[in-house]
């Protein structure tokens, strides 16, 4: 069988050697340790003895050629029982022609330094991007587990950590748990101000908060935002969602209904489902409609994506939205589930807002905010009636979409949502 002998590191701290004189020729039979070649390592002339008894098949280089340490020097034909080299030495690994084996740079007293880093196997997750699992009670109520930063915040806000459920391992209270608890509280009337009057406090912006900040700044800076509003009678939307909840067994909120209606609108107004390639100066119209649903979590803003929403029914959208959100919180969210939307919708109604000027989820070009559905006085057939009313806010990239077009899209959306007939035509499952 054939064995290739690669130039070993000769312990002289060099990377290569020049062939000065071959002592053998191709076809020669050689004995073990028979001198093969004199090489010049630029510091000294070194004679290399043959590691095998066999026949020379190939000499890899002529006189004057420079050969790198670890590269083939001589190929032999040896007897089948020649010793198999399992050593860790770079010479050996490279001996079998394995180019990917780490090469060593020789030093005075040993094999030498390994060049190049080993391939990496693990990836990192920036701090704060790991979504929180379901909160649990701490294992030992006597001793609350919480990181130093959480303790500081709790103290500042006058919160007793023992009253908070921690979502970290072993019930550890994470910052998000604390913030969630804080956001749900009524402000204590006698609570001391967190920051002493006349002083300032600095809170570092890190992790996902920082990413969001950067993204928002970029969107704001690059995209001329205009928002157009439409207040609609959402009574039928409400009715449909109740119907579907009963029918499908899935909890359907108004949001999936609006999502599906938006998807219809986008078919007629494809520029809403696009991105703007400024370098090429082109509007990139997307063939698929992946709707991002901006969701607020204790890890920050996540955007679960309903892929190919145009091929899904309202109940499916409702179910998937819940599933992806849960997966994201439990740290199981895949990139496919959390990125890649072509248009986004944000349900600002969940925190009580009625309308707003949402920032576009670049590189998209439009974002729809659904406001809170409230009982309001409405005019129905010339008469004042209390109806369930909501405002839709559509922010769009005014570089490529005009107010007129946006207005028309909104009108189409309103038409669907206010009409039991059009609503009924939306795929339900």
């Amino acid at each position, binding site marked *: 069988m054939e064995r290739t002998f690669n130039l070993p590191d000769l312990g002289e701290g060099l990377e290569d050697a020049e062939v000065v004189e071959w002592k053998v020729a191709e076809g020669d039979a050689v004995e073990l340790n028979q001198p093969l070649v004199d090489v010049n390592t630029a510091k000294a002339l070194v004679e290399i003895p043959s590691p095998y008894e066999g026949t020379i098949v190939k000499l890899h280089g002529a006189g004057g050629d420079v050969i790198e340490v670890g590269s083939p020097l001589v190929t032999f034909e040896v007897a089948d029982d020649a010793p198999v080299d399992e050593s860790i030495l770079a010479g050996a690994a490279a001996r079998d022609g394995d180019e990917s084996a780490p090469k060593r740079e020789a030093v005075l007293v040993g094999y030498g330094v390994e060049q190049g880093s080993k391939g990496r196997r693990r990836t990192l997750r920036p701090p704060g991007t790991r979504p929180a699992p379901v909160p649990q009670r701490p294992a030992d109520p006597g001793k609350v587990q919480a990181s*130093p930063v959480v*303790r500081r915040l709790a103290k500042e806000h006058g919160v007793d950590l023992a009253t908070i459920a921690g979502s970290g391992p072993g019930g*550890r209270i994470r910052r998000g748990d604390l913030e969630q608890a804080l956001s749900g509280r009524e402000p204590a009337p006698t609570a001391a101000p967190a920051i002493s009057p006349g002083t300032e406090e600095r809170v570092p912006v890190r992790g996902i908060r920082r990413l969001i900040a950067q993204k928002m700044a970029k969107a704001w800076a690059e995209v001329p935002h205009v928002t157009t509003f439409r207040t609609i009678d959402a009574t039928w939307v409400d009715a449909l969602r109740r119907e579907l909840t009963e029918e499908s067994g899935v909890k359907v909120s108004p949001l999936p209904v609006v999502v599906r209606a938006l998807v219809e609108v986008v078919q007629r107004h494809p520029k809403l489902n696009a991105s703007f390639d400024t370098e090429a100066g082109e509007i990139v119209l997307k063939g698929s409609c992946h709707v991002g649903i901006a969701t607020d979590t204790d890890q920050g803003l996540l955007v679960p994506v309903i892929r190919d929403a145009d091929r899904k029914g309202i109940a499916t959208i409702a179910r998937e939205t819940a599933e992806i959100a849960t997966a994201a919180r439990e740290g199981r969210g895949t990139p496919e589930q959390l990125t890649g939307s072509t248009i986004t919708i944000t349900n600002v109604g969940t925190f009580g807002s009625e309308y707003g000027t949402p920032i576009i989820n670049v590189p998209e070009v439009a974002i729809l905010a659904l406001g809170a559905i409230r009982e309001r006085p409405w005019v129905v057939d010339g008469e004042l009636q209390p109806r369930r009313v909501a405002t839709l806010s559509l922010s769009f990239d005014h570089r490529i979409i005009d107010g007129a077009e946006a207005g028309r899209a909104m009108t189409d959306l309103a038409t669907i949502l206010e009409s039991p007939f059009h609503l009924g035509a939306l795929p339900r499952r």
Partner: protein
Amino acid sequence: MPEVTMGQALTQALRFSLEHDDRVLILGEDIGKLGGVFRITDGLQTEFGERRVFDTPLAEAGIAGVSLGLTMAGWKPVMEMQFDAFSYPALDQVISHAAKWRYRSAGTLNVPIVIRIPEGGGIGAAEHHSESPETYYAHTSGLKVVVPSTPIDAFGLLVRSIQDPDPVVFLEPKSRYWSKETGDLEPNGLPIGAARIMREGDHASLIAWGAMVSRCLDVAEAAAEDGVSVEVIDLRTLVPPDLETLATSVRKTGRAVVVHEAPMILGFGAEVVARLMEDAFEYLEAPVLRVTGWDTPYPPATLEEHYLPSVDRILAALGKVLEY
């Protein structure tokens, strides 16, 4: 019950070991007839003979080197380095050989030596007599590093160190040689590698070894007057460290201060802090602070008290961690 000084306890430990194991040898400079400059080996040569308790030439590398050769002939040398700084000439024999022979021989050799080193300051001494060299040894894998803080524990720890088949650097806090304790000398006390809770407390943990343990106990007394309950831990062994006891205490109190005479940079306190960060992070109410000698050469005697961690400096550090 008898009262005994640390020096006397150490002498007793050497006597005990010479009696119970006839392969134990004691060697060093001035340890024979003179009984050692601190009298730790007082009377031993008379009792056990020059064959087993003998003076050497003034050559620390030589003392360590021949001790290694002696182990190969089946002996268990207990050598004395006269003062902390004078152990440095022997560092090559200790680091390059003593620490590594078991490893290098794939377990066929072991090195049952004890290197006794009076260490630390606080005795108003001349230059080079007040060093705390524990980091050099603790950083060398293969050695054990033991530091008693009280007389009775010193007895037990030295007896165990001599019995230990591995090389032990036994650091004797010389400023405590004359400290007294009442009680029986017990050869089977707490083993090497176990830390001891000297005083229980709830508000903060004070971690120290050697001479600083008694200082920390003074600090805990003072703190108690202010209603602050301080737990004091005597580490007793730097390597292998008792991570369990340290972590348990700090998980309980949530606050810790480490105290040592040695300079701050890479003093063993840095190791303790790093371990507590890993093992007790989520229980910490405050950062773990260190109170140490300054990062200067050891000062002249007249300025010594401004260098060594004082009761007030330790109280100040406690104060800081309590504010969190």
